[in-house]
């Protein structure tokens, strides 16, 4: 019969239409909130989602996974006296690996001898050119540059970030990427332990 295909298709939309309400009601009956809660958002992007799946940005925001990457930042260690000590050694690997070449680094030099010192004097990232590829974070040998999670950075001018704007504490890094942070800390501790053991070995050697 002509029109049967259309009716069949409409039955799908009809079912979809009710799915949202059924889902809403069953959530309400069990006293959970389907909207504006983390649980609700996770449900809407799980394999069991039915009916409406949209997330009402900006009132609701998708929960980004740990590996989510958006514009880099520089990690600094908080010293006891409140001084910021950047992990960056101005080795320049990030600026060499950067595909659109948006990282600009001025290496510090000793004020007396003029020899290069392994800290950055100036550090710029042109965020309008950055393509969020994550190579800088991937290839940094000192875990000094990492990709951020903060994506609401709309502005009216150019976004050229300098050292001051790029630096974020290691605690922030541990907060946004806990798994990566712990992994790196463990690797660092293991390396230091190995180094200490080696040093102890060489120190013990002459006396033996």
């Amino acid at each position: 019969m002509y029109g049967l295909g259309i009716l069949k298709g409409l039955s799908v939309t009809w079912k979809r239409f009710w799915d949202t309400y059924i889902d809403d009601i069953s959530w309400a009956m069990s006293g959970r909130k389907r909207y504006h809660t983390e649980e609700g958002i996770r449900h809407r992007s799980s394999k069991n989602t039915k009916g409406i799946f949209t997330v009402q940005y900006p009132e609701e925001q998708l929960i980004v996974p740990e590996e989510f990457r958006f514009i880099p930042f520089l990690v600094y260690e908080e010293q006891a006296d409140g001084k910021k000590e950047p992990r960056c050694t101005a080795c320049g690997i990030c600026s060499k690996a950067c595909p659109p070449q948006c990282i600009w680094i001025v290496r510090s030099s000793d004020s007396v001898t003029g020899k290069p010192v392994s800290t950055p004097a100036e550090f710029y990232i042109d965020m309008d050119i950055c393509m969020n590829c994550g190579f800088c974070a991937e290839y940094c040998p000192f875990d000094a540059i990492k990709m951020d999670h903060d994506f609401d950075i709309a502005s009216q001018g150019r976004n050229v970030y300098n050292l001051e704007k790029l630096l974020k504490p290691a605690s922030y890094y541990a907060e946004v990427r806990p798994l990566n942070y712990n992994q790196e800390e463990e690797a660092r501790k293991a390396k230091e332990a190995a180094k200490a053991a080696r040093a102890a070995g060489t120190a013990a050697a002459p006396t033996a």
Partner: protein
Amino acid sequence: MATAIEPQTVDLTARFPGKVTADSRPGYTGFLVNKENLVEVAAALHNEFGFDLLTSLTGVDYIAENKMEVVYNAYKTTGGAGLIFKVQVERVDPIEVPSLTHIWHGLEYQEREAWDLFGIKFTGHPDLRRILMWEGFEGYPLRKDWKEAFYEEEIKPYKSRWPEGKHILAEEKNVFHDNLNLPKGFDPEKYIVDKEEDLYASLERHTLKDEEGRMRTDHVVVNLGPHHPSTHGVLRVAVTLNGETVMGLKPVMGYLHRNHEKIGERNTYVQTIPYTDRLDYFNSMSNNFGYVTTVEKMMNIPVAERAEYIRVIMAELSRIQNHLIFVGMLINDLGSMYTPSLYAFEERELILDIFEAVSGSRMMCNYFRFGGVVRDVPDDMLQKIKDLVFDRLPAKVDEMERFLSENEILVGRLKGTHVLSAEDAINYSVTGPVLRASGVPYDLRRADPYSIYDRFDFDVAVRHNGDMMDNYLIRFDEIRQSLRILEQAVKQIPQGPINSQKPNYQVKVPAGEAYGRIEAPKGELGFYIVSNGKANPYRYHVRAPSFVNLTAVEKMCIGTKIQDFVALLAMLDIVMGELDR
């Protein structure tokens, strides 16, 4: 495993003594054909040796040897290794090479591209105009002595970035300092763009003339686009119409052209990986796949076993979401706005969530590295992939089919329109689902297996009518086959390292050439790379399926109705990031 250099299947030197020589440069394969004998050799390859599918044509500018080279990659639709042959000519303008469009019609746009970007004149080409650059553009951008605006250095990394990287904004530089060429006697005051006439003149050759001279009706030229919502980006199509019937049609492209290939030649090998994401931006995983397999072929390195599985899983998930979007967008273009496409988007979102969790980005994945992938798939994500593959997606694909496939209006619009025969499809170098819908079971995953596709049990989806309905249905067939591959892959995936190499931002690629190709969701995605042993590729060419598939659009449209053309564009599944490059 990286594939070794394929042996030549045909000995052309014996068949054409004195006319063809084997390419003996280290790292190169194939044959060098004399320019005078090119047409003869090509005709023999097509008619005698059965190389019916010429997939890729590109130029290479060997400026040091003062040579310009044209590289052809010919394949058989029955499968197997291909044949690469080249023509070398003196690098003195006018550089002339005979056109082969009368043998392989699919070369039409690719020859125009080589003319546009290299200035190689193909004598006998029916419509040799610029294709990606605008009419009136001066110079040939892919020649080695051409420099782009904001040119800094030949190769990256730029020396100005470190250790004295005082930041300057790009717009503060003087663009027109030393890399601007103007034609002799150019006066901007008097300049009028007159090349538009060429475009409309090129439409003439399809005009059907009334032989008896009765009822002469005027034809109307209509420009669809570039800002037309149904052209999937900025594509302009000039159409001559007789009433509603298309009499002639010419696509005008290049609005999104960014000289991707030149950027690729400035980049180091690793730096190009995120740029390939931006080709076909729906399928960055597939683009990565094609590029890294080509470079791995040149480097001759193995791929970690687990990474091979991850690659296949990601590429097939990418194919599924691409085809779902295809269906949604096709229906959108037919006038049924939003409902089907949003149903498709829902499943796509779930797949993109997986991409985001493993790679860090939903669309610009940048996930593949030479020798493997960048990071492992966590167990919870593998579980989510399993949930989708075994539970959700099969049911949702069925639902989508129930929703649409029998709809009388849809069937009425699609059935019997824009039929492309198998012979034409091959001759116009059409690849991917469009080729298979016209009855040619040619799928690179079977015909020329790469990665680990030879381990999986799946069928090559094929339909036989070549009309729009078959093109629509074959996407569902392909999704089901992809799901079959995924079911096997997620079961078989082993534990182990995810990269056979140490992470390094610079890789060593031995001198030579390679043409690597994969079955991207839209067709054959090929990369032709020439290395001279340095940190940057000497030549980097992308054979984009959207671009080459569009060659057949004229053939398919002449004599059909204009309203079906919008549906045809959706059906060819073009994406501008890849088409304009």
